[in-house]
């Protein structure tokens, strides 16, 4: 499989008033193959959304590179970036906020095509009709406004809009978190079908490990700006190595009252990304922390998987 995306030592620090900075993303590296779905999980404040935006260059990184099909996007000026954007699209969490309430759905889905100067008006109208159908919306939807639709249907409009330019990579940031469970599965099924039919790659960002695992080939677990564990989704679920990944999996309430119940494994809150703890960032909450964890930041260690694809940043290994 060809490499679609190569992220190397990516970092973003947001400066604070009066000095200091929030290190939202701090040295993240991974590669994504064409047609592959990578899930990014972690709790609020871990930097997963910032990572998604950095990859699309919606915000510019402080350090590191993002190569898409070999081209380093971080070096491109805004004008050179624009034609690249048709290959990389985004789906946002809140379909209520992501659509201009004054535009009709047809115009919303057509807008990316018009901006990139693709097709004549008639051709674009045909493309819009096809996109709506692909995303499970009726043809009449084109003439209506976003407020006439439910959350699930609005997310379908967002997906149609993201698909308009036939992108290769879609960054989906919590695409189903705002939806009711009976609607979530409809949207997940649509996204999976689109991936199959069009060979799309997703970077799927979510706090919901069960959802991420269902859609992803590989999983990256983030904590305070770093990927602390990454590997094949099945393997991470079956054999999580990092104490944080274990805590995360144990903490998910499964809809099964007979499941043996673990008590909360980790205590306390996420440390501040302004003053991340020295050594391993997880050590203040880690049940296995030793002296070494307090002073020395762990390096990635391969812990198995085909092609040593499963790695973890932890001194236990």
């Amino acid at each position: 499989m060809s490499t679609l995306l190569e992220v190397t030592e990516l970092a973003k620090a947001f400066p604070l008033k009066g000095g200091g900075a929030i290190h939202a993303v701090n040295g993240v590296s991974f590669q994504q193959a064409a047609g592959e779905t990578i899930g990014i999980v972690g709790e609020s404040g871990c930097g997963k959304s910032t990572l998604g935006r950095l990859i699309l260059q919606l915000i510019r990184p402080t350090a590191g590179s993002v190569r898409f099909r070999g081209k380093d996007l971080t070096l491109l000026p805004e004008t050179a970036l624009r034609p690249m954007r048709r290959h990389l699209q985004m789906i946002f969490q809140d379909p209520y906020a992501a659509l201009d309430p004054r535009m009709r759905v047809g115009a919303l889905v057509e807008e990316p095509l018009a901006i990139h100067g693709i097709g004549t008006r008639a051709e674009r109208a045909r493309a819009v009709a096809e996109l709506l159908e692909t995303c499970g919306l009726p043809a009449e939807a084109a003439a209506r406004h976003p407020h006439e639709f439910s959350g699930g249907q609005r997310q379908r409009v967002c997906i149609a809009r993201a698909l308009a330019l036939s992108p290769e990579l879609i960054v989906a940031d919590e695409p189903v978190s705002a939806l009711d469970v009976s609607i979530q599965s409809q949207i997940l099924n649509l996204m999976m079908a689109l991936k199959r039919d069009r060979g799309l790659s997703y970077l799927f960002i979510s706090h919901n490990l069960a959802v991420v695992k269902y859609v992803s080939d590989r999983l990256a677990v983030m904590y305070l700006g770093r990927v602390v564990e990454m590997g094949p989704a099945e393997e991470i679920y079956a054999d999580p190595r990092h104490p944080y990944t274990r805590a995360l999996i144990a903490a998910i309430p499964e809809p099964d009252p007979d499941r043996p119940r673990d008590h909360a494994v980790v205590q306390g809150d996420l440390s501040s990304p302004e003053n991340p703890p020295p050594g391993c960032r997880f050590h203040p909450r880690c049940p296995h922390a030793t002296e070494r964890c307090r002073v020395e930041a762990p390096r990635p260690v391969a812990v198995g998987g085909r092609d040593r694809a499963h790695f973890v940043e932890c001194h236990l290994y």
Partner: protein
Amino acid sequence: MTLFAVDALSVGFGSARASVPVVDAVSFSLAKGETLGLVGESGCGKTVTVMSAIRLLPSPPAQVTGGSVRFDGIDLITAPKAQLRALWGNRIGVVFQNPMTSLNPTFTIGFQLVEALRLHRPVSEPQAREQVMAMLDRVGINSPQRRLQQYPHELSGGLRQRVMIAMALICHPELLIADEPTTALDVTLQAQILDLLRSLRDELGMGILMITHDLGVVAEFCDRVAVMYAGRIVETAAVHELFRAPRHPYTRGLMESIPRMDTARDRPLATIEGMVPAPGRRGAGCAFAERCTRALERCRAEAPSLADDAAHAVACWNPAS
């Protein structure tokens, strides 16, 4: 012993002449020390049911159009405001979903907690501060002395939610109403808060009414469950029974559509097609009939009612067995 009983409660929104029914003849009861989960998707009426039952919804626009609610023998629907004020925050504690909008941003945490306690208990200011600090410690807040001086915006979401819980528990209520108490929290924090509520329930013997959309939370936390759809309870049972053998097609659909950690990736997820009908457009039949794969002729014509007093009750003409 029954602590809290809601009987055929109906709630409408709007004026007396043009009221849109939102909650339709909902009944349930809760015993001391018991935890009942009220589950359903957004707009199903779970919060409206509970908040109007304890008279916390402003009227108008919300109007109780029928039914009764009893808390320890007191009829809450007819109780005068003064009597309700003596119950709220005292014998009935409430954890609201959004701690950011439920705490007053202009007062310190300490001021708000001390006020909540002294409103109902004849204790001096220093005594109250002592009890408040002990409660903050119980809900897992470190260095409570320092937290008392802080304003809500200075706290993280997890801490704010724990302050809300401390405020709801400060008078040791007999009934705790928890409206999505962990929905805004990350899973590791959620696990900590559920642990905490569990131990406080066992220690204080509270009845807990948990409003949630999360079947995972229900499975881990509740003794009994009532599933709501479009303003009605469609199924109710003990938690093990409901998860082992759900009978209402809606309950089944919900359970099957959630991706779990062991869901196979090569099959599409089960879905419930269509959408929840809007209030006022629910028609004469079963509100779920339009989306139901088991719907019969009768389902569209006549709404099924929930069997009374059965251990596992379902409102369906054609339930799964």
